[in-house]
């Protein structure tokens, strides 16, 4: 049969994204939606390439996204001039890690940044300059960017290697959470019920999504439901954490532009979801 359910779903996703992009352009809806759409396209491209062409090709779209985010982080953070070799080393960790992912080399993927990049960066900084003042903060900043924006995002890639549809589900779930958060934030709510709503409101939607794609993800019912509740919680936690960092980085959410917070602000919801969902599924499911 030329068209099966997955293809039709992909076509539907494509249609939704195109519609979103067109509506955004035409109406100039709130900038939050406008800046979000290109990143959804990037994820879409990643999934389409890895599902219908080759995972070894698609994964580099995610690598590029990681690179964009890390570059933005390094643009914003106040690093010293002598940290340049350290920055370069951090960038170099990206191709290595994603190469391990596409080769399904789990052991190397999981230690590449926490062990090797972690050890190499301080060494490079120590070797590349004699100025000691500020080295501790610089190394901390380099590692922080690398862990959040490359290592955490990379987990979504590894999840897609196990099951593209699970990864699609996760990304769609995060997008749903962000949509709810955006809708809820439009009204200024007291903080406590606001967060509870942001977690509870998307859960049923995600549960329906998870159950709808179960034939392709192969996720057991219990785990689908756990994800439906867990993902909004992780999104809320990730958003709160990155918001905290954004305030220090000087990111102004009213004036987002590429290089000035747009990428980090868009990817912030994925930062906690990626690793936790990945390791949760890997622990409980034999096929992962």
């Amino acid at each position, binding site marked *: 049969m030329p068209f099966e359910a997955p293809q039709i779903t992909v076509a539907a996703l494509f249609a939704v994204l195109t519609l979103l992009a067109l509506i955004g352009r035409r109406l100039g809806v709130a900038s939050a939606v406008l800046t979000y759409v290109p990143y959804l396209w990037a994820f879409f491209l990643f999934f389409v390439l890895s599902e219908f062409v080759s995972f070894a090709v698609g994964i580099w779209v995610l690598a590029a996204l990681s690179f964009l985010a890390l*570059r933005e982080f*390094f643009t*914003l*953070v106040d*690093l010293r001039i002598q940290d*340049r070799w350290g920055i370069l080393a951090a960038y170099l960790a990206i191709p290595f890690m994603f190469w391990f992912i596409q080769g399904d080399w789990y052991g190397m993927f999981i230690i590449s940044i926490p062990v090797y990049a972690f050890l190499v960066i301080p060494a490079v900084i120590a070797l590349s300059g004699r100025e000691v003042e*500020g080295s501790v903060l610089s190394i901390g900043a380099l590692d922080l960017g690398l862990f959040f924006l490359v290592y955490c995002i990379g987990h979504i890639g590894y999840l897609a290697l196990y099951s593209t549809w699970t990864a699609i589900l996760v990304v769609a779930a995060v997008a749903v959470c962000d949509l709810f958060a955006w809708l809820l934030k439009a009204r200024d709510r007291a903080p406590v019920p606001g967060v509870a709503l942001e977690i509870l409101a998307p859960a049923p939607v995600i549960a329906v999504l998870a159950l709808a794609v179960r034939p392709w993800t192969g996720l057991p019912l219990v785990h689908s439901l756990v994800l439906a509740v867990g993902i909004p919680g992780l999104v809320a936690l990730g958003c709160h954490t990155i918001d905290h960092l954004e305030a220090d*980085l000087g990111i*102004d959410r009213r004036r987002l532009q590429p*290089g000035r917070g747009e990428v980090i602000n868009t990817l912030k919801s994925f930062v906690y979801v990626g690793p936790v969902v990945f390791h949760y599924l890997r622990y409980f499911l034999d096929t992962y």
Partner: protein
Amino acid sequence: MDRAWRLPSIPALVHLLFIRPVLKLLFGVHVEGREHLADLDRFIVVANHNSHLDTLLLFQVLPLRHLRRTHPVAAFEYFSRSRFGRWLAEFLVQPVWIVRGGGDEDPLAGMRARLSRGRSIIIFPEGTRGRAGEMARFKTGVGRLAAEFPDVPVVPVFLTGPEKALPKTRSLLIPIWNQVSVGPPCFFHGSAGEFTAELEGAVRELAAGVVPSHRRRKRTRRPPTLAVLGIDGSGKSTLSRALARRLSADGRACLVSDGVELFEGGAAVQAPPLLTEKVRTTLGRRTKVAGSLKSYKIPKLAELLLRDHVVDGLRDWYAPDVIVLDGSPLLNITAWTGLYRREALSQAMCLSVLRVLSGQGMSLPADDPVYRTFPELGTVERLRLAHLGVPDAVLFLDVDPGVSMERIRSRGEERQAHETADKLDRLRDGYRLVCRVVEGELGIAARTLDGALGAEDVADRAMEELRRLELPAFAHLTGLTEVDSHG
């Protein structure tokens, strides 16, 4: 037709197919104000100079038809060192060479020749690449050139990113996001010197428009607190806001009033939200609608305690250089005790209350009369809430209750429970007593200002008083040491 399609030259193709995509890919060039260049036939681009990347970035922004018709001004001796470097520069950007210290040769001659042939020029008027992130004064050559070609628009451009991607002293290029901000074109007027200064101002203005980023700051100093006291309607909120604004001239100041406000460089900036602060403002609203002094007391006390807690939070969260308090929780509560028990408040009692509330209750005997007169203090102490901060300086805005009542009436808001002439009078006495005790017994500077003056005058007087006090805790505030424009 002049603009008919022509086969692009090889250098233009190199720009289009190689340099532009590579720059975009690695250095993510973000352009603001591209439209300012779109319709110009001839122009002089004026930009800040930090890096060799600058010229290539500017070529990224040029409309296609200008690629081969625009010439950056470059120092010959720098490129004379390498034959390949010079060839590459000639091939890609066709620079106008100038020789530094080139004797009697007119440095503008080359630029003049290109401009009169209808070409465009890129000038870095700082003369040489500056230190990373700093902009030097513009040299007046650009003003003189513009004076000779008054019909050629001069376009100010600010580049940010190259100073990190390829700074002057380093040869390692690293991917960093670059931004090119193009300003609206200006035409020559006035004198060459004035016009140069105007251009420099335009580039600095573009620089100010760039979204700021992270700055490492050293936080070794505990920010001092300045408390502004006064009865309702004395103008203390207005005064404390004005003081926060003025004291933030060269740093950050935090104002704790009905809400928390943050000032930086003399202007209000958006403060990231604090959870405690939200609770406090909710409580604050509650007190405003309280019907009687009794139902006013508890939320007001809670609000003041939280206000003190917020001050601690502010130190950690916003790292201000100074905190201005619209009413000090410690001193307000102390003065308020006089409102409830006027007859009991003596100088000694006042000192005891201050001691208990600021966490030095241990130094008092357990049967101190203060606990009998104000049993609430014992409760506050047992709940471990008595650790209110002592401000580093106090300003008391003294005003006659009659005047303040008039002001409250003219605000047109609903009056709060204690806002009657009699109660305000008692409160005023309380504040006076507190100020005396604070200055006499605790050794904290407390000054009284005449609240009947206009808002600006009061703020001037307050700054004057602070300057005269020469408190070491405030010594780092340049807004105080330098004579400000208001003074």
